[in-house]
């Protein structure tokens, strides 16, 4: 089905199952340990062997020698995979760095070998016996050093509106600030993991992967296989955050190891490898320029961004956060990319928007302070119902409603306009706000929905659930459409044998995949009506029955039926812009002695039209806020430019927030619907929560102390020199 906007009245309007706070239907399986993750499919083949990957010990250079003899002789070892015996490993379009090094090494901890052995311990022991000689090459690792060499990447022309230079030069009030954000790790709980099994030339991979179809295609490309010979299965994923959008070394090396040994092989990346072997959110340098009139009206907005990546890699699109944000007739957005020899930079939760919001939303706070305006007032003055570049109206933009609701709930009026004035015990206390703005894209998505003979329903799609709640909202969608209770719906996900969905990424998953199920259910409703002989257009589905024209039939009377449907969204963006919005509120204390920053309260008021499941949506926004708190206060992949690697490559050193860091956290959604967005009349919020909270924290730190730190994360040593003496 082609989505025709606006969506008219449809069965999802009933909101009997959809829209109700619903605990995850996969929750009991997860809490009882019966949800099977990629590494745990121990029963799929009787004689699983174990792979253990050895990462490169240098960041850039050439392998000059590799002695695997001792490893091969080590107890239990079946084989050692290296570039010499792996056969050709092609790079798919989704990977920049080769997944197997040799003879060239392009980043630290790139896989140079994998031992396959009878047990995990044997494989690990043998891996330590491999001797690799390297000829090291000079590399570039520091963005600041390479900034001047950066250029505009091929697909990213600057965007300009009006006459930015003149408008900024003549603006009565100016902010011109440069911020930096460091590289971030996805730091998901489940490391990348795969089991590979060959049967008659067909390859099955149980692999932790967010995008089944892309994963399947990439594996086929990497190994030179026909895609029809590859099956990828990924029913449960222990967090991805973008780190599992694309296949990584575990998938390809498991497949090669299995081919070489004739055994199914399972591989998980050991934790230290996850940081340098896989991908990260690149560091950025960002210059924000804001020119305003005395009364706060923005005249010029500029956002220039520098990031680095391996040759051929993508740029971090931080200006994406500024482009739809606030009205100003004169605008500049520039993205520049330098070549760095660090591990591959790639998408992490709200790529572009997350680091971009860390700077534009803090710079807006700086401007508000310059103008002596309340920062919410400044946003109100510059709010817009049309996209400031394209001029198209937003399908729905309730940004200021979010601020108003949040301000009254949070007690914003108690905030001191003057920074560094509120003291509570040993802490300076401050409040901050920032906008949450994130695109609401969609992708084609298909699903197969079956009515079984007993009246129960089965949903099958290759959509993934990376902890987001996909199982539940897809089940709710089918239950609503077919008039059955949620308990009567079984949802099966993450298998490339199922119809191709949108997958989990870019906040498009929830909107697209529920719409795909909606499309399939519509077809199934017609098939059911036809089967029992009622008029499909007049039929209503409720309480396990279909009725029309005074007649009612139990669904079991329709017999077993299956329909595969697909939603496409062509033309959706022709007349409107699609975004989700929210407002973040933060209160925190800064210790007057030690400059330790301790959050007291976080609140996000969000709007995305209809919320499919308030429970999982809230969970998603909270997770985003938590990651945003990490980015503001803790998280930094520390580059050691001498060795060209991220030095703090484990979870004891790369600290992410824990419960004690956020004692009180609340998420509220506005009511309403967005019929222009999708047949579901709403959008997903998986990335909305991480856009803005870091800046709200930075702004609260300023409000508490009068100190503006433009170099994230805001750690105690950056505040200390400017703190009042004690």
């Amino acid at each position, binding site marked *: 089905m082609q989505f025709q906007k606006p969506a008219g009245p449809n069965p999802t309007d009933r909101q009997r199952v959809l829209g109700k706070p619903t605990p995850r239907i996969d929750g009991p399986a997860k809490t009882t340990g019966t949800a099977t993750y990629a590494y745990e499919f121990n029963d799929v083949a009787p004689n699983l062997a174990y792979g253990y990957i050895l990462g490169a010990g240098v960041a850039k250079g050439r392998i000059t020698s590799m002695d695997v003899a001792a490893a091969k002789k080590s107890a239990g070892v079946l084989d050692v995979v290296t570039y010499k015996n792996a056969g050709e490993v092609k790079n798919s379009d989704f990977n920049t760095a080769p997944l197997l090094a040799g003879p060239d090494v392009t980043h630290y901890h790139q896989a140079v070998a994998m031992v396959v052995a009878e047990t995990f311990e044997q494989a690990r022991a043998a891996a330590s016996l491999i001797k690799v000689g390297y000829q090291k090459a000079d590399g570039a690792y520091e963005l600041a050093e390479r900034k001047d060499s950066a250029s505009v990447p091929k697909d990213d022309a600057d965007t300009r509106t009006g006459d930015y230079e003149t408008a900024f030069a003549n603006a009565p009030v100016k902010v011109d600030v440069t911020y930096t954000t460091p590289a971030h790790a996805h730091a998901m709980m489940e490391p990348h993991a795969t089991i590979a099994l060959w049967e008659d030339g067909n390859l099955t991979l149980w692999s932790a992967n967010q995008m089944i179809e892309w994963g399947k295609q990439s594996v086929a490309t990497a190994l030179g296989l026909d895609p029809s010979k590859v099956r990828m299965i990924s029913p449960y994923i222990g967090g991805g955050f973008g780190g599992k959008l694309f296949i990584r070394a575990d998938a390809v090396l498991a497949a090669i190891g299995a081919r070489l040994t004739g055994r199914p092989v399972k591989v998980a990346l050991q934790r230290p490898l996850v940081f340098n072997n896989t991908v990260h959110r690149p560091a950025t340098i960002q210059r924000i320029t804001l020119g305003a009139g005395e009364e706060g009206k923005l005249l010029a907005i500029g956002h220039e961004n520098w990031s680095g990546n391996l040759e051929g890699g993508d740029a971090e699109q931080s200006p994406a956060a500024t482009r739809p944000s606030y009205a100003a007739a004169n605008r500049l957005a520039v993205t520049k990319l330098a070549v760095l020899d660090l591990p591959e930079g790639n998408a992490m939760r709200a790529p572009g928007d997350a680091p971009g919001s860390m700077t534009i939303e803090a710079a807006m706070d700086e401007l508000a302070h310059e103008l002596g305006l309340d920062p919410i007032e400044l946003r109100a003055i510059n709010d817009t119902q049309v996209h400031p570049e394209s001029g198209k109206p937003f399908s729905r933009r309730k940004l200021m409603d979010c601020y108003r609701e949040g301000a009254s709930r949070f007690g914003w009026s108690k905030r001191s306009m003057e920074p560094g004035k509120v003291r509570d015990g040993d802490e300076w206390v401050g409040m901050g706000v920032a906008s949450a703005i994130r695109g609401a894209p969609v992708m084609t998505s298909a699903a197969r929905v079956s009515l079984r003979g007993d009246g129960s329903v089965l949903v099958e799609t290759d959509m993934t659930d990376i902890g987001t709640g996909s199982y539940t909202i897809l089940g709710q969608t089918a239950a609503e459409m077919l008039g059955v209770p949620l308990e009567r719906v079984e949802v099966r996900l993450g298998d490339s044998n199922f119809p191709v969905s949108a997958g989990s990424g870019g906040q498009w998953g929830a909107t697209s995949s529920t719409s795909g199920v909606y499309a399939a259910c519509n077809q199934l409703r017609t098939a059911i009506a036809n089967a029992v002989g009622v008029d499909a257009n007049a039929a209503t589905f409720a309480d396990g029955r279909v009725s029309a024209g005074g007649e009612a039939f139990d669904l079991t009377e329709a017999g077993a039926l299956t329909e595969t449907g697909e939603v496409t969204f062509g033309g959706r963006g022709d007349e409107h812009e699609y975004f989700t919005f929210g407002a973040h509120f933060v209160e925190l204390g800064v210790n007057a002695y030690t400059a330790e920053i301790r959050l007291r309260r976080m609140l996000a008021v969000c709007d995305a039209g209809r919320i499919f499941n308030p429970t999982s949506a809230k969970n998603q926004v909270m997770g985003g806020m938590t990651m945003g708190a990490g980015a503001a206060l803790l998280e930094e992949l520390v580059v050691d430019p001498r060795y060209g690697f991220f030095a703090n490559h484990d979870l004891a050193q790369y600290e992410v927030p824990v419960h004690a860091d956020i004692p009180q956290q609340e998420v509220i959604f506005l009511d309403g619907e967005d019929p222009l967005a999708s047949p579901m009349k709403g959008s997903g919020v998986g990335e909305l929560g991480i856009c803005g909270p870091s800046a709200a924290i930075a702004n609260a730190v300023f409000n508490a102390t009068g100190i503006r730190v433009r170099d994230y994360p805001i750690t105690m040593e950056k505040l*200390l020199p400017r703190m009042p003496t004690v």
Partner: protein
Amino acid sequence: MKSFTYERPDSPEAAVKAYQRARGARYIAGGTNLLDLMKLEIERPAHLIDVNRIGLKKIEETDEGGLRIGALVTNTALAGDERVRRDYGVLTRAIVAGATGQLRNKATTGGNLLQQTRCPYFYDTNMPCNRREAGSGCAALEGHSRMLAVVGTTDACIAQNPSDMNVAMRVLDAEVEVLGPKGARSIPIEAFHLLPDEEPPVKEFALRPGELITAVTLPPPVGGKHVYRKVRDRASYAFAVVSVAAILQEDGTGRVALGGVAPKPWRRPEADAALPKGSKAVADVLFADARPTDDNAFKLPLAERAIAAVLADAQR
């Protein structure tokens, strides 16, 4: 991880004998530190002697009026002991400021005394590290050293002792009792952790080969207000950037030791004596010979301010 053999003796004496019999042996208690190091190929013992069934799990009162803490008493049990909470509050506070409940349930008193540094280069076997491989160099010296020591270091090694418990033990003047192939002896805590020499190897502990920690004794309680202030980036489950253990008397005298700033819990008698003069005087003494890196120089003013916080707190 290298293959290893394993045994579980049933007395301290049998454990020491086992050590003498085997080559490349290590004792293992809670395993929360040693197992991680083995998985990373940093420790490669050929034989593990599991000391969890040798007894030494009691906390007893000594004839002098102090406490004798068995080496296998868990951090949780030690922190929760009524006598410790009443008379040695700084110890309880230090322990519960460390790690997590799960780790403290496994971690033992002996193992905590011997826990390894958290230097990032120590944990990556591709990197030079004198502590791990004598003579390979010290990658931290000009590298990522934010968390590392600022005083008591040499160019051979600038790693910090990351323990919270040890700082409290130091301020309490604990003694470490050991049993070795040559018999039993007692080591004052101040002499237990070593500072690095100018040249590698980096010697870390005053233990001789095969010596087993059997107990830690605390002298009779000294009263006063017991404070442990841990400064950290994350509110919980994070190692100290700096920490302050102090016992403060009403007349302004007392004892103070710092964690996170040196290869051992950092205390000086002259610093104790300077307590009535305030935080600057104390910090000046403690950091008289400081040699921080650019990365961690902030620990000097930070520690001084943390001492000030502790002194202010004691006056409330």
